[in-house]
């Protein structure tokens, strides 16, 4: 019996092609044998192997593309932040010295996190604020809840623009209405003024007011996002909703790389990617 008898007609072209590729003297001998037909009996096996290869190819390609585009996006963000950094010292933020609601000293050093993970978000306001501050602080609370779900560590800070009335005690009572993580800061008029200046915060207390008087303080409304090294990264305005605010912080947290790691990467052979 010859091998062609047992091979279905529709298989022939594939077989021919296959054989022409594997044409060795050894094969000629084996073809005459009865069990060699077996080799071609499962007609699908060749296509199956090809399918596996194609699937593997597509799969590897997809995984590769996914990682590449993800990494590319991350690098793009990092480069962007790096560019902003290299423009010079950020104009927002700087040394300040205030006290928290427990009477402990709190300075710009307290914004830094030695584990390089915790971001800070700073809001300037005053406790007698009629509507904007409470709304913004509620918004902050919602943002913090969202960020906690993503395991993004945050240190929320409230700094008063009204040190005359906002003593540590007053701020402590005021902040009880808001997120429990909130750190409230105050200080002498000059200390607060200096801090506001560092953050380019405008505020105006009416002249000649006594702490027991009823007055409003005009001030700029922004959240300042500070990275774990205490550097300014972004600002969230009043027009941003919870989702947009969270997105900004998440983006900053994704792109953040500690100074030491940044230098290491720039010096490595892949350094050109980070320049």
């Amino acid at each position: 019996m010859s091998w062609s008898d047992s091979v279905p007609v529709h298989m022939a072209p594939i077989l021919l092609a296959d054989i022409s590729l594997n044409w060795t003297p050894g094969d000629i001998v084996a073809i005459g044998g009865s069990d060699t037909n077996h080799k071609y009996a499962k007609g699908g096996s060749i296509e199956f192997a090809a399918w596996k290869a194609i699937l593997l190819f597509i799969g590897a390609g997809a995984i590769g593309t996914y990682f590449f585009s993800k990494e590319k996006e991350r690098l793009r963000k990092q480069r962007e932040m790096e560019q902003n950094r290299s423009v010079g010292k950020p104009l927002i933020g700087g040394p300040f010295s205030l006290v928290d609601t427990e009477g402990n000293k709190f300075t710009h050093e307290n914004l830094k996190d030695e584990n390089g993970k915790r971001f800070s978000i700073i809001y300037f306001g005053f406790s007698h604020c009629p509507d904007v501050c409470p709304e913004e602080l509620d918004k902050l609370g919602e943002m913090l809840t969202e960020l906690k779900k993503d395991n993004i560590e945050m240190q929320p800070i409230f700094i008063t623009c009204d040190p005359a009335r906002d003593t540590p005690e007053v701020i402590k009572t005021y902040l009880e209405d808001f997120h429990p993580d909130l750190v409230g800061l105050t200080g002498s008029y000059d200390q607060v003024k200096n801090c506001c200046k560092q953050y380019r915060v405008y505020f105006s207390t009416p002249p000649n007011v006594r702490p027991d008087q009823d007055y409003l303080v005009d001030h700029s409304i922004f959240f300042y996002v500070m990275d774990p090294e205490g550097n300014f990264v972004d600002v969230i305005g009043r027009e941003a909703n919870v989702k947009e605010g969270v997105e900004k912080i998440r983006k900053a947290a994704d792109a953040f790389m500690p100074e030491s790691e940044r230098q290491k990467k720039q010096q490595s052979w892949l350094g050109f990617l980070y320049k």
Partner: protein
Amino acid sequence: MGLFSSSTETEKTNFAPAKKERTVCWEKRDLFFDCLTKNNIDNSLDAKELPKVNSECGNEKKEFEASCVNSWIKYFQEKRFNDLTRARYIAKLEAEGAQPIPIKLESSTRKKN
């Protein structure tokens, strides 16, 4: 008048209105403002409007003033008038075919060239 002087405890340390007080104040404010809107009163602080405010929304005004701090009472009324003026101005501009310029605060992209 107001919350501070009504409570003797707050005389010494000037505590800010708590959430509960704030919420009550906001509710009374909204009721008062609803009444003003219903009676077509734009500026409730305007001396010319005062007789109308007192005759049409006297009760709402009294409750609003009793539930809020003095500085807030003035602030909210000024703000309402400013917001109304602005909203009308924008509406007028839009009616004339003006297009809003989209301005968004995007600090992370501002230094891109």
